[in-house]
């Protein structure tokens, strides 16, 4: 059974069709890349899956549960976490708090217990803090746990964002251009890192990317979007030779 199944997803912004008739499915433990030229609708698809936008038509099912109509935090709690194209960590907060916030849905005390610091409060806070510190240690961010997130170097901010997403305990991780702003050397490291994340946290990953080197290197399957519609899908080696894809990326004349 597929983990995520998207059926005839369509989304319009005041007449402009950003995503049209998009079909997609992903099995557990797959690593699939979504590529396409700028403005093809890749990030819109992520925003639709995570509930930032409400789909105009179509359905999105996670483990056979309909997601269209749920709020973003409900979708996150049902097992989808994401990162952002331009990093959106909580800049003024500490690295530790960034990760602790992502545990929001897993905390078992009520507002009344929080206001008076009684009951389950202490035990739960301790548990969440330890979980967060462990996660930070796995990502080698523990030395900066009390640093403000904005003071981290760019690469570590990206890493923190992934750690924060994993703190919500997702089954499906959506990475939106994780290689943005990285040099070729860093991209090779990132490839290893993404493989490692999939192993360690046993998550399914969908990856949006511009860097062909990265997608070709790690993705098991690719979907190519242009003007909000799928123009090709298949193995990376097939996609590389697909004339339609070359046309979308390079223009008609070069391709022919």
């Amino acid at each position, binding site marked *: 059974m597929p983990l995520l199944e998207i059926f005839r997803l369509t989304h319009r912004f005041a007449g402009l069709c950003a995503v049209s008739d998009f079909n997609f499915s992903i099995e557990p433990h797959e690593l699939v890349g979504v590529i396409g030229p700028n403005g093809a609708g890749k990030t819109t698809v992520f925003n639709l899956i995570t509930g930032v936008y409400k789909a105009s038509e179509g359905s999105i099912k996670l483990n056979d549960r309909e997601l269209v109509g749920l709020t973003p935090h409900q979708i996150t709690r049902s097992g989808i976490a994401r990162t952002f194209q331009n990093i959106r960590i909580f800049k003024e907060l500490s690295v530790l708090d960034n990760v602790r916030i992502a545990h929001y849905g897993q905390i078992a005390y009520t507002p009344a217990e929080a206001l008076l610091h009684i009951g389950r409060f202490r035990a*739960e806070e301790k548990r969440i803090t330890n979980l967060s510190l462990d996660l930070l240690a796995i990502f080698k961010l523990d*030395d900066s746990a009390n640093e403000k997130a904005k003071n981290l170097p760019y690469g570590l901010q990206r890493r923190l964002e992934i750690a924060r997403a994993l703190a919500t305990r997702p089954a499906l991780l959506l990475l939106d251009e994780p290689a943005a702003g990285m040099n070729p050397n860093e991209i090779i490291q990132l490839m290893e890192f993404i493989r490692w994340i999939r192993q360690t946290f046993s998550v399914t990953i969908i990856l949006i990317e511009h860097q062909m080197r990265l997608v070709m290197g790690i993705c098991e399957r690719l979907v190519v979007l242009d003007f909000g519609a799928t123009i090709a899908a298949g193995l990376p080696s097939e996609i590389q030779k697909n004339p339609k894809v070359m046309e979308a990326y390079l223009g008609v004349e070069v391709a022919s």
Partner: protein
Amino acid sequence: MTKLSAAYFALLKHWQTLTGYKYFWPVFLIAGLAFCAAASASEFLDLYLQLILIYVGINIILTVSLNLINGYMGEFSVGHAGFMAVGAYVASLLTVHVFPPGAVNILFPLAILAGGVGAALIGFLVAIPSFKTRGDYLAIVTLAFCMIVKSVLENIDAVGGPRGLLGMEKLTTLPWVFFWTVLSVWVIRNLVYSNFGRGVLSIREDEIASDLMSVNTRQVKIIAFVVSSFFAGIAGGLFAHALQFINPRMFDILKSTDILIMVYLGGIASISGSIIGAVIYTILLEILRPLGIWRMVLMPLMLVLLMIYRPRGIMGLREARLFIPLRDLVTEKLWRQKKKEAPDASA
């Protein structure tokens, strides 16, 4: 100027050494309560000074509670005086018309509590537009709310209409103000250093990201608005029974502005800042009273200078260690130690 800033940093440093002193809070609470009780019983402080201290306490409650919305959550609410009005009227109606005159003294805390609950209910309603609107637009909504409260009160004859309500006994004594101030600071501090408080902070940083990180932003906003307006209502009840007279004009936008000034003077997202802001503003207003109308020129001028030289207020986005729960301080200390032991371990 350099001398002043040196003193400022010396004070900060001194504050940090104080926090190592674990008996500070128990001693402060007992001594504070004893002082307040003695002052109100034996009148070694004259009534005028007592009244100023009462206003300081009320303003601390107002400032800390508004800071929850404007500082920690990063919204801009200008309706705080409206919540205060609800609390003031509910509490006053109870003590004047409902409670038996003989038992008013004993039932006073109940009246104050009822004022807080009344304001909290209204705060719940105001939280709803905050789901959809943010920033300037929410400011307009809260402004409208403040105007609605004022005109509703002006048009109900049962509460005196525009003439206002009187007949309250002077029930707000220094020990009661001390108690409610400590309670409100403690509860709001607790909220800030909890899961829900972190949710409030994350809404300020990035609301969409916060929702996507499993934070139930609606729940967080409701909690923040309800708690904030509850304490505004408490402050309103205390205010009404300190002044023994209220009318709707006291709770207009200008009153909200006063509270806003104290919040931004002390610094956003800081409980210690709010306390400092409320104390400085209230006392300065009294000290400058002899200047007459010039006071209203000098105070805004100070604000302008403050915003230019310290745009985040005195304690903006920082917290005195006294208010940080020990647990968080200990984690911080642990990491500092670890860093010292292995300085080259940072990746």
